[in-house]
């Protein structure tokens, strides 16, 4: 507070403060390099796999990649909205670790109800309701009990995982319904229906997040809460809303997963890492290095290609996990260092 003695100095006697242009320019260049690099890596990986495996480029396999990506893509889009509204801080920012478990429980609810003879409508509503309820618990834990999302959703993840075990007795519940059949089939141009669901879901979310006032406000709330509050925005409503949305994504992904696997299976939790990678990796595809829906969609396809290619090359799944972990470290450190800072 040394400035407090500056009683008599007029503005003219003070030195011009140099603007921080230089750092932002170099940050901008590094950002462009990062984005270009990310796209180049995407293309390179794609080409490499095409040469390494004769099956990779077949329509069947590409359709398979899209279908596989649909589930993690829908989850990652839900997670992206939570990260936008909660901010990118790795410790205190927005994150929803319960998403994969949410998908598992929602799929189990759907499969169990179908097996019990309920019609599709009821089972769908129950699955989506399950997802929303989990989102509501997260929202309450974060906004009302003020637990950091990282911890709150970690706890919810375990509760939800436990509920799934109770419901399924740790067994596979097969489910074959008209809805699942049409979802697991092909749509126009022989592309799997699941891929259309992903694209449709991404499109709707992208329009809301990137083209409406609601989306702009979500970014403000996450990135600079004080500025959002000064603009008269109710922060908690946006954050709670983001968790409700990610809960709903979990419910939708649950139905997609029931379609893809013809029922509910155990091991939903294994999807958590790819989903987190996808949502974080999406940031490098955006101009301002912020999470965007289109960026997440691109990165969902990238991660899908990566996992699929490794399977085709018979590389162990441990290696895939290792690479995904490395990607998280790389992306988080790159975006933390390069993102524009308040100054």
């Amino acid at each position, binding site marked *: *507070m*040394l*400035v*407090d*003695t*500056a*009683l*008599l*100095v*007029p*503005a*003219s*006697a*003070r*030195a*011009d*403060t140099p*603007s*921080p*242009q230089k750092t*932002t320019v170099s940050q*901008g260049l590094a950002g462009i390099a990062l984005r270009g690099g990310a796209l180049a890596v995407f293309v390179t990986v794609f080409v490499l796999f095409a040469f390494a495996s004769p099956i990779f480029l077949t329509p069947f396999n590409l359709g398979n990649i899209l279908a596989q990506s649909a589930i993690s893509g829908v989850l990652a889009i839900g997670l992206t909205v939570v990260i936008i509204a909660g901010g990118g801080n790795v410790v205190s920012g927005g994150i929803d670790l319960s998403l994969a478990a949410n998908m598992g429980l929602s799929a189990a609810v759907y499969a169990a109800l179908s097996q019990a003879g309920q019609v599709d409508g009821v089972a769908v509503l129950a699955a989506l309701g399950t997802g929303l309820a989990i989102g509501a618990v997260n929202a309450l834990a974060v906004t009302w009990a003020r637990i950091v999302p990282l911890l709150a959703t970690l706890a919810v993840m375990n509760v939800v995982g436990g509920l799934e075990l109770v419901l399924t007795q740790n067994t596979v519940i097969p489910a074959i319904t008209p809805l699942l059949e049409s979802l697991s089939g092909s749509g126009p141009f022989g592309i799997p229906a699941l891929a259309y669901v992903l694209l449709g879901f991404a499109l709707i979310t992208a*329009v809301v997040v990137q*083209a*409406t*006032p609601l*989306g*702009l*406000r979500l*970014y*403000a709330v996450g*990135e*600079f809460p*004080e*500025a*959002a509050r*000064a*603009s*008269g*925005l109710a922060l908690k409503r946006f954050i709670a809303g983001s968790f409700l949305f990610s809960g709903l994504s979990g419910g939708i992904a649950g139905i997609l997963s029931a379609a893809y696997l013809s029922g509910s299976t155990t091991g939903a939790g294994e999807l958590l890492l790819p989903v987190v990678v996808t949502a974080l990796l999406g940031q490098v595809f955006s101009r*301002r*290095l*912020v999470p965007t829906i289109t960026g997440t969609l691109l990165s969902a396809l990238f991660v899908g290609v990566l996992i699929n290619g490794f399977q085709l090359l018979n590389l162990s799944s441990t290696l895939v996990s290792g690479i995904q972990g490395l990607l998280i470290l790389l992306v988080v450190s790159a975006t933390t260092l390069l*993102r*524009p*800072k*308040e*100054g």
Partner: protein
Amino acid sequence: MIQQSTQPIIHFQGIEKSFGGAKALSDVSLTVHRGTVHGLVGQNGAGKSTLIKLLAGLHRPDAGQVEIDGEAYDHLTPHLVESLGIHFIHQDRLLVPSFTVGEALFLGREPRIPGTPFLDRRQMQRRAQEVLQRYFGLSLPNSALISQLSTAEKQIVQITRALLDRPKILVFDEPTAALVKREADLLFTLIRRLRDEGITILYISHYLQEIEALCDVVTVLRNGRHVATKPIAETSAAEIAGLMVNRDIGDLFPIREKSPGAALLTVEGLSATGRYRNVGFTLYRGEVLGLTGLLGSGAKDVLRTLFGLETAEEGTVTVAEQAPWRASPVQAARRKLALVPEDRRRHGVALDLSVSENTTLASLPRFTRLGLVDRASEAAEADRLITRLQIKTAGREALLRTLSGGNQQKVAIAKWLSRHSDIYLLDEPTVGVDIAAKVEIYALIAELAEKGAGIIVLSSDLPELIGLTDRILIFFRGEIAREVVSDTITEDALLAEVTGSSEATRYVG
């Protein structure tokens, strides 16, 4: 142009506000008239920011009421304040870094494409260009992000945001602190224009020449009290400065034998690009040495460098007769240096530990037996220091969080006392501390000096520097501009030295 005849728009009546026992405002009454530029001045701790936060609805007064436009309120809320048309231009620029200028300007009241729920980005860009051009003659590219703007440009965007709401009252809190002359002049022209359009301006600044040039009326606060409100035509910057300065603080300071002993700390040729140049001085045993300067003068950087929190590029620091060292906090503590930082909550104390734990934190080895903390001797030391410093606490087990700011500061000092340091570096030791606690801290500093310690006090409180120290080093733009003997300088003269006003007059012409 004084319009005292117009009706009042803001009227504070008998406002009282305390924080944890320290009185921030006592019986403040003040009237602001419609369509005037009303300046608010006062030194650090005078109560300006508390008063502004009351007006913003962020604090609730303990007593008194606020009348806005003839309507009386016993407290305000942020929402109410906004609906009354009162807007604040804060010192911190509340703009989202990754937003474009248009997005930042219209956040919260975004224009939509007619008949749709979608953002009308084109209109946001067009109107942003238009208003920035109209108010400030400023043209920014549509794609420019807030993070790419200069500080001044951000400030302008922030002001423009408030103007879009067609406010009745605009409160400027140190708006020119980050602006260069040309930008500040534009701002003043704009403020006058706004006033002529009937908007009432409350203008808070440390720069009295700005107040003199811009305001119609000025109010001076001192120690939480309303000292004077005068039309600017009937006063002068010199008179205002006189009203701001506390004349009766002299007897707060202990009378002390000033007889420095052997050299304790020698600093030679200390330089760091952009922060300070060729700084050299010696601190003697039993001496209280003052450092002062404006923000950015380098005084604070030098103090932090001595403790190893920053590094110098050239120069040496020698303690007593030991070899010079590359400073780090660990090395500094080993050489019996102690730092009491200004931001105590962040650096000085652990709020969730007890008073006892805090006082012995820096000297745990003394209270450790067989690797375990000896609670009995820790408690004895804590009790001794609580009595010694008259720390007001429910007991040594009370959490530090429960103490007032002044008492937390005493604990921060106690923490280093229990280490028996030789050299104390005190960074703004009495900021946010009430008078009673100040007196005890001053007495403690004097006693440490008498016992042979060397003490460096960095302060922007000029009476404190004059009353407490033996010598004062005045930093100006990274260099020691002058060294003065504290007994021989008046507050006004010191103020002139600190602000470099002899040079400043040359600048202004």
